[in-house]
């Protein structure tokens, strides 16, 4: 709902309330006794007050906690991407240590060929593939997937991002992005009466989103022949 529309609606409702006062009651209308009114309003207030302790008794563990500090993870994510762009490649150890970078899968594949080619399916355009040669020939490929910081407003949901599906068959490593993910959040704003004295911005939070990048870190046997094909710019060999 656009803001203008909601304000218009609010105004109309205001007018409606005025008219509720103004309407003449029909003759047969028998107004409620004051005793009933006092009872009803008392009950209403009583129920509302009772709700306060109930609210505080509700377990809050299911909720999404907001990040205490989102700037640092975002900064280190941006920094990492920058480094990649500038051909400064991190090691796997570096990635594990970085703030805001999250490893969301770790797989090992048996190699059935002496060559490795790649099949990056559509939808994986912002996946960066890094290849590191191991010190030995163990015939296995270790694939770790990393995701950089993903924020909407204050919410860090990096960990909720699904890893791509990876398979190795006939010397071909296929990378398939997960199905389109949808995240829904519900947030509450404090009443404007509280916000005025809380140093909180009561207007709707400016939801700055920061989208994640994926890093696929592949460790291959020392002597494996790697065929990057046309994807040279997206697959880097360290």
């Amino acid at each position, binding site marked *: *709902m656009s*803001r203008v529309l*909601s304000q218009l*609606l*609010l105004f109309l*409702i205001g007018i409606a309330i*005025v008219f*509720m*006062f103004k309407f003449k009651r029909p003759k047969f209308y028998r107004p*409620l006794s*004051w005793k009933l*009114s006092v009872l*009803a*309003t008392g009950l*209403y*207030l009583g129920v*509302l*007050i009772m*709700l*306060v302790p*109930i*609210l*505080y008794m509700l377990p*809050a563990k*299911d*909720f*999404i*906690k*907001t990040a205490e500090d989102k700037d640092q993870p975002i900064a280190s994510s941006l920094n990492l991407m920058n480094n990649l762009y500038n051909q400064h490649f991190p090691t796997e150890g570096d990635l594990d240590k970085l703030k805001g970078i999250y490893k969301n899968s770790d797989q090992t594949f048996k190699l059935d060929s002496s060559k490795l080619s790649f099949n990056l399916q559509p939808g994986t*355009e*912002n996946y960066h593939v890094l290849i590191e040669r191991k010190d030995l020939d163990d015939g296995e490929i270790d694939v770790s997937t990393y995701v950089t910081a993903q924020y*909407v*407003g*204050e*919410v860090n949901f990096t960990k909720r*991002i699904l890893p791509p599906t990876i398979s190795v068959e006939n010397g071909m490593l296929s990378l398939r*992005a*997960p199905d*389109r*993910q*949808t*995240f*829904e*959040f*519900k*947030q*509450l*704003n*404090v*009443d*404007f*009466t*509280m916000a*005025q*004295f*809380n140093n909180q911005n*009561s207007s*709707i*939070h400016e*939801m700055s989103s920061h989208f994640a990048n994926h890093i696929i870190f592949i460790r291959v046997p020392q002597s494996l022949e790697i065929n990057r094909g046309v994807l040279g710019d997206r697959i880097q060999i360290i």
Partner: protein
Amino acid sequence: MMSLKEVDLLSISLKQYVYKLKAYSALFYVLLLAQIIALFFSLNGISHMSSGNGELSVSVNTYSASLVIVFSFFWILFAAIQLTTKQYKKIENPLVTNSISGNLSNIGFLMTACVFGGFTSSLVGVLLRIIMYFTFDRSQIISDEFILAFSDLLLGISVTILYMVLISGMGYLTGVLTKVSMAFVIIIPAVIIGISKAYTEIFQSLIKFFTLESSLPLFALKVIITSILIFGVSILLSNRGEVSQ
């Protein structure tokens, strides 16, 4: 028999206040109704934002109980105007009364309405949270402002009450002015619109005088002093006129 035993203005005003609380009790139903309607509107969220890239989309629904408070403000505004109307004034006639006791009891009623309205409208925010807690997927709820600090709740209640006092004063004065002369029915909106258009800055600074005050004690002081002035002027203005039946 002839000696005129002095009657106490305050005790008469107090009796009238109790009488009016009972008499106008139906007004509180209107508030209840307004708050519940506002709550239903609030359950739809006040804004929706979504963003996304090729692989994911994110939508955020924002909720707030502010609308309940806004509705309560409307309510107190019109309740205050109502109290000055002939229809409502008439119930004073069978009682022991004069203009001042009538005004004092009205103000007493309005203050009670403000306290009640302030409490309930802020507490409906609690109700909203509880409804959301049980009807929405909790894993989608951002905990941040969902968990309402008790001190914030008290703060909200007191600020709402203060605003309502201010608004009730403005409504009451408007009502009294229209009693002094029906011309004010046209003059008041004209002046408000006129000032807001022609002297936008003055108008805005008037509003900001209250809404941008971030110190609670100062805010309270501003509201209380302004309200006393407004009600004082109302009493003075209505003290001269005849209450016709």
